[in-house]
């Protein structure tokens, strides 16, 4: 049994220790907000927080996070939305939206560490892949949160 703390809730999972956290979340705990994109830590769609750090859950063995605090998109802000999610709506960031939960996890972790990130900070931290091409709005939304404003984007 592997003891996991996910979104503040304790779970005992009878799974192989090497099972990636991603699949323990998706298929065992039925938390589908964390996405599979590549399985080799390239795309970041599977980003979750482990003790506050952004981690690519597709290459993280579930046993390695036993006893640590795992937060997924479902537990990022309850109830409601955090500032990043609100800025994502305000700036209409998502297109298909598939990569966006990972993007939001990465951006939330970045802003927690660097409340006023520079463009270079954003380039370095936001290594998530988006096929639709939402990068410009991802950057705008992060700056808006840093600026303390869920600023109205002109329509």
């Amino acid at each position, binding site marked *: 049994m592997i003891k996991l703390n996910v979104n503040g809730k304790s779970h005992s999972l009878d799974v192989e220790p090497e099972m990636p956290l991603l699949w323990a979340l998706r298929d065992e705990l039925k938390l589908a907000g964390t996405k599979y994109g590549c399985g080799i830590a390239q795309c970041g769609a599977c980003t979750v927080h482990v003790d506050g750090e952004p981690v690519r859950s597709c290459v993280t063995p579930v046993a390695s996070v036993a006893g640590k605090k795992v937060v997924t998109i479902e537990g990022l802000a309850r109830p409601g939305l955090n500032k990043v999610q609100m800025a994502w709506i305000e700036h209409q960031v998502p297109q*298909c939206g598939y990569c966006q939960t990972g993007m939001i996890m990465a951006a939330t972790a970045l802003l927690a560490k660097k409340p006023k990130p520079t463009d270079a900070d954003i380039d370095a931290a936001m290594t998530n892949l988006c096929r639709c091409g939402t990068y410009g709005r991802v950057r705008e939304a992060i700056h808006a949160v840093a600026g303390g404003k869920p600023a109205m984007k002109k329509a």
Partner: protein
Amino acid sequence: MTTTISRRQFLKASGAIGGGLALEFSMPVAALAQPALAAAPEVTHWIVIYPDDRVVIRVARSEMGQGSLTGLAQLVAEELECDWNKVSTEFASPNEHVKRKRIWGSMSTGGSAGIRTSHEYLRKSGAAAREMLVSAAATQWNVPAAECTAANGVITHAPSKRKTSYGKVAQAASKLDAAKEPKLKDPKDWKIAGQSPKRLDTPEKVRGKPVFGIDVQLPGMLHASIAQCPVFLGKVKSVDSAEAEKMRGVKGIVRQPDFVAVVADNWWRANQALKKVKVEWDPGENAAVSSDTILALFKQSLDDPKVASARKIGDAPGALATAAKVIEAEYYSPYLNHATLEPMTSTAWFKDDGTLDVWTSTQNGEASLATASEASGLPLEKCEVHKMMLGGGFGRRGAAQDYVKQSVLIAKQFAGKPVKLVWSREEDMQHGFYRPASLVRMKAGVDASGKLVAIHSKIACPSILALLRPEGIKDGLDFTAIRTFSDSPYTVANDQVDYLMRNPHVPVGFWRAPGLQNSFYRECFIDEVAHAVGKDPLEYRLSMLKDGDKNKGVLQAAAKAAGWGTPLQKGVFRGIAISDGFGSFTAMVAEISVDPKGAIKVHRVVFAIDSGYVVNPDACRAQAEGNVIFNIGQLYQANTVKDGRIVESNFNDFPLPRIGEMPKVETVFASTGGFWGGHGEPGALCVMPAILNAVFAATGKRVRSLPLKDGVVA
């Protein structure tokens, strides 16, 4: 066979009155868990209005990020005159669609056609429903309908100062007949359409709600991972699954002529076990095909006298023979995978009552339904497809329903249990329907003044239609292979376009803006000719476009917005291109720099588009931004063929652009009105030529073949 069903029967059958089945119409799986909704009448087949005034607008097309779910709803709401804040959407059910004789029209979502091919019947449906609601209110009040007005979901009878809301009269309105030709608004009077309300699908997406095909969770569901023959068209020869079958969680192995799948209680376990299945493949006759042999095939074809004629104006070969100067070039593009971030996925469930349910990310719910029916052997009426949000489509999930077929075949072996098939990224990369590789030879003849007097283009390109829509081929021509050349707006007295269809075994498909390679070829070659005769690339193009041509309008708009001809920061250079398609006219100016190592940096892109009308400007800007970065990837992406198979396997060797590569994108709506053009793809057309023409301006080097070797201008 389809069965007729009256609206009344349908409402009962579908549960739109009272029952629970109506919930299954509702797109998000999350909604399945919600309490039953109150009874609500279908006012028209597109519009359901609840007693509490909530309006549900049905959407027949798919939502893959392009935003038309919201745009289509805006058009209905505009004519309906409802309160936009009370609008939600649901996907029309493919099963009911069949039973009701295709009442919701096309479900196909491609060609940037979602809005431009359905705006009329949707707006009419909204207008008809508004008239029915007003009429129902007028009847209740016993006043002439002409004395009543409707706005924001409220009907007012001014003379008696009475008001009622849509929800209160919807039931009565639903019993009236819908007018066939209701009067539509002039777009200049739009209040909801033409604006940028926030997309209706965003809130669930930022919360991580399980809205995508891959997110489906059902009771007792099993998971499948698949392996297809690495060489396209190859077959399974033998399978040794003894080791895999003993692995934890494995429920069984599925063997079909062209694939093997492992089914387990968790996808990772299925995929781990799949790696232990020893499959011997029969690669068939294509095991020696490579990118080199394909290029050689294209190259040979360019000298084949047997061509399909795609355009013949004047006498191009004759005029070339007497031209003052002839410029000649060959351009090449590789195969490219769609690389949707959500891999191919489909869930199928053969239920005990003899029906089949499929949940999938599809660009065409009806095609998925037909595929499910065919693969299962069940009649259409016994099948249902639950349309989920797509984690990207870009043309991969429309005409080809391979993954739906596979999921049905897999689930058939596990009847009674839902089975979710998810392709690994590796499988997705190596079993796509690729943007065709192609080779084009162009010859241009100019007179002594530099005027272009003849152009002869020969296009060697696989046919998408030959594989996916053979009925679409006319006179040996596939419009996706010849476009941009066959319909070039440049006025050239002698213009000949020849098509050489060559179909290697690599599957090809509709990649965002099918045929866009031709925009790269034509617009870079025109640039070459302009430079060869010492003309400004903008002026040269303008001189060949007729006044009143919308291509000219967008070219001027882009040039003006970009400040063409004005000084730039040191080291930054401009390139320009035009191309029309998918109902719209576009032009683009790219500003780039090239570092000493030859790496290209795109700083700013100015994009002008004339789509006639613009339904949601912000969503259209998002499409422009997406198209720009999607295509910047072409600088270094390729799917290479070796030993009959695709070499690249994941994002490590098929890189997607990252955030640092995103330029500033400025969209100029040069709308002239009076027509409906698309937005999902037109923005893709000019990206490569505008950038590569700027690269020439910066370096004097002409890039005629993609991708760039080692990602740099050598």
